[in-house]
């Protein structure tokens, strides 16, 4: 029975949990009244009463726009025209309906969840069971190229907002029954579908269990993006470093699953979460594995260098010019001194002005409508460029430093990691302005200490470098040729280490000898 007291009257203001105990009535009229009460002022809810051929009254209920209406028409047709003589729910499902996915619901909680998720529900006079017909069909974006992770070589498809499309993209990459897709529903109001995907027999079962537990523990009204899930299940909320990776690329997800990691797919967003996520994964771009290994390795080393440039350049510039001018080659120092001659600010203020201006430009570039983007880039070139130098606000050397830092931060393939580097630049700059190189050392040591302490779902953030495991180093600083990467990363606690037979490497060795 519905809840007691005052609340009873306002059925349309209850959460679905409230209906967990409410059983479906045998009477169609009663059910219809109830549903109409629940869906008061919901113009998209449709209740269609009809009479089955030679049979009782029935009601089909769905939310318009998220069902495949042609299929619903087909269902109605088969019930109203082609109905045989069996009228109980089981027989209808078995014999009459041309629908693949069916299930039954016996209380309103299940019924409402199904209807709101896009299923259609069939109620038959005299039956206390409702038949749930999986005829979902929302309008969505087609599969297109991922915008945040572009590659020169590699698949061009990206996830979209539709969960089923996303799971199908992964399934087409890994055609194995070991690929599991465990389904969860998160959000008391949004009822967002969340799928935890992993490769059974490869991924650590404890890791999977831990992720499931953490997802189950979430109790929030709504989940609109995988970022909600990420923040709610990450290990350390007050850390500048991301502990869960996100990607738009099905190939990246497939690669991660094959390494024993776990994917969390959230309906309504193209960003799929991957856990665990460590520091060394910041530098692994999917293209490393598609290009030949030398190119992949060199690009990874380049990214490594640019990571430090992005983090340290402004701080080093400040430290060297204000505390350690003896470190700079004489003629370079003279050039810097010449360009700084008319600058009214100390180096740190100059650096902060420029860095903040640059960050602002970057933010504006993202927020602005695409049509005015051109104007921003022109203005940006003026602000962070020759005009600022000629106006005597910043020195030419600082413009170079800021531009280099900006470019460097774009080389990181993980956007969330790049953001944390961009953030940490500022404390380092302040430390450098107060303590010089010592300050930078203190800052970097603090970051490293924090990283060493950090864990992502039990996996140390700096693994496999700290704690050390040399066998996993084939995919850390360089990307070893595929013939040599026979094993999956052991620091992920994979169940099955063997990635390929050693035989292929023997063939290569013979080739080397020839």
């Amino acid at each position, binding site marked *: 029975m519905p809840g007691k007291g005052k609340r009873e009257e306002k059925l349309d203001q209850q959460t679905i949990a409230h209906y967990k105990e409410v059983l479906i009535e045998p009477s169609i009229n009663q059910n219809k009244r109830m549903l109409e009460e629940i869906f008061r002022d919901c113009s998209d809810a449709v209740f269609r009463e009809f009479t089955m051929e030679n049979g009782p009254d029935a009601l089909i209920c769905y939310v318009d726009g998220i069902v495949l209406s042609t299929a619903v028409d087909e269902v109605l047709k088969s019930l109203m025209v082609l109905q045989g003589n069996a009228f109980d729910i089981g027989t209808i499902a078995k014999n009459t309906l041309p629908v693949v996915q069916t299930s039954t619901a016996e209380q309103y909680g299940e019924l409402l969840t199904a209807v709101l998720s896009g299923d259609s529900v069939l109620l038959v006079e005299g039956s206390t069971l409702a038949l749930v017909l999986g005829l979902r069909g929302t309008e969505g974006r087609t599969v297109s190229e991922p915008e945040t992770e572009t590659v020169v070589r590699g698949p061009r498809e990206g996830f979209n907002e539709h969960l089923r499309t996303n799971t199908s993209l992964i399934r087409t990459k890994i055609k194995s029954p070991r690929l599991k897709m465990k389904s969860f529903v998160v959000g008391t109001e949004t009822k967002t579908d969340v799928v935890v995907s992993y490769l059974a027999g490869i991924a650590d079962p404890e890791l999977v269990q831990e992720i499931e537990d953490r997802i189950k523990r979430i109790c929030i009204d709504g989940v609109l993006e995988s970022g909600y899930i990420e923040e709610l299940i990450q290990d350390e909320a007050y850390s500048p470093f991301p502990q869960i990776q996100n990607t738009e690329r099905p190939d990246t997800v497939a690669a991660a699953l094959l390494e024993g990691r776990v994917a969390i797919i959230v309906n309504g967003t193209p960003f799929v979460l991957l856990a665990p996520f460590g520091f060394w994964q910041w530098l692994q771009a999917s293209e490393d594995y598609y290009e030949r290994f030398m190119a992949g390795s060199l690009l990874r080393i380049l990214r490594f260098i640019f990571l430090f440039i992005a983090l340290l350049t402004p701080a080093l510039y400040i430290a060297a010019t*204000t505390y350690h001018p*003896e470190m700079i080659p004489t003629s370079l120092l*003279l050039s810097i001194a010449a360009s700084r001659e008319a600058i009214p600010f100390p180096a740190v203020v100059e650096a902060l002005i420029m860095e903040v201006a640059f960050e602002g430009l970057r933010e504006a570039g993202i927020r602005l409508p695409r049509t005015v983007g051109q104007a921003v880039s022109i203005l940006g070139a003026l602000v962070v460029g020759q005009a600022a130098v000629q106006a005597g606000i910043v020195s030419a050397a600082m413009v170079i430093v800021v531009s280099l830092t900006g470019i460097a931060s774009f080389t990181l393939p993980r956007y969330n990691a790049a953001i944390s580097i961009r953030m940490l630049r500022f404390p380092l700059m302040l430390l450098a302005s107060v303590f010089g190189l010592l300050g930078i050392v203190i800052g970097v040591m603090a970051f490293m200490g924090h990283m060493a302490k950090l864990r992502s779902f039990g996996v140390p953030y700096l693994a496999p470098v700290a704690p050390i495991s040399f066998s996993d180093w084939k995919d850390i600083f360089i990307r070893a040729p595929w013939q040599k990467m026979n094993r999956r990363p052991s620091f992920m606690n994979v169940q099955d280490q063997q990635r390929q037979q050693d035989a292929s490497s023997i063939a290569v060795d013979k080739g080397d000898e020839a």
Partner: protein
Amino acid sequence: MKNMKSCMCRFLLSALVLLFVILLSGCWDRREVNDVALVLASGIDKEGDGIRISVLIPLPGNMGGATGGGGGSGGKKPFVIKEETGSSIREAVAKLQRGLPRKLFLGHRRVLLIGEEYARSGVDQMIDAVTRMPENRLTVFVAVTKGKAIDVLNANTRLERFSAEAIREILQSDSSLRVTLKDVAGQAITTGSDAYLPYVQLKETSLARQQAEDITVSGYALTHNSKMTAIAKGGASVGIRLLSGKFKPYILTLKGKNGGNTTLGITSAIVRIKPIIKNGKPSFQINVHSKSSIEEDMNIQRNYDDIGQRIEIEQLVEKSMKQDIMKALKLMQESNSDVIGFGQIANRAFPGLWQRTWKHKWDELFPNCSFAVSVDNKLHRIGMTKENLAKKEQ
């Protein structure tokens, strides 16, 4: 829960207080590059009883940096020279600082010039002033100037923006031996060796509209107990270069019999000094193995196919090199300046003997040491032609 909150509060508060403590130190050593006067070179001269120091400071504003063009050709010199006297070096620097709006910064000083007069009174006192300050570079090139150091500092070489740059380039080129303050101090403190420094002087170019002053290394100043005692010039300076073990290629011209001079380049020379005991006294055998190449031959009749003529040239080179070395040795013995460190060579060969007797009377022993010099030269390259192309066919 409440307890935890107050605990957190206390932690944050103490962190904040600690942060303030850190910030209290302020920006201790902070100095912006436009608040420092970079000293690129300095000079030390004797001034009566005291010392006159001079520093060369570049003017970044006059260098035509990012905004200007031309690169300082508009007549304004891109540097200034400031000078001050004092009874000690640091006192003079401090007095100089009083009159300067920018902080003197010595971390980029690459050249230290010493006036001849000051060098003759001893460089050991100067070494202290330089090495005591952490800012100073021990790898600063040191040279003794003919006349006042400040005059050389003020030279208008026109090829480089600053005379300091010109001096530095010359002091580290093949025309000099790289002598840094570290080397001078190292040699000066060791018994059985003395320091030598490049001896630089100004050479004026007086061609009309091309007036300039060039700085050349004309020899080496030899010291004894840190006091300059002699100047090795000409052949003796070549001898010093050979004996010093820091070989740099150089040019040698042989006077020909028929007016045809031959210029050779000495491309390498390996000098071995072997100490032996002769009549209880140290004596040294000096063997030189050198290679030479023909760079110019004014003797048109020369035929390099003739092995005899080649051997003749080799022998002439050997003779010349031997003479140079002997000249250097003679000068060193006359001025009692063991700049090659023969004492240390003897020490390494006969440590016991050195410790017991030679060490204490090396100053008396060295002028009386005997040297046997032998030079072996190989003419290994004659250039692209074996005979003069202008030679008439026969």
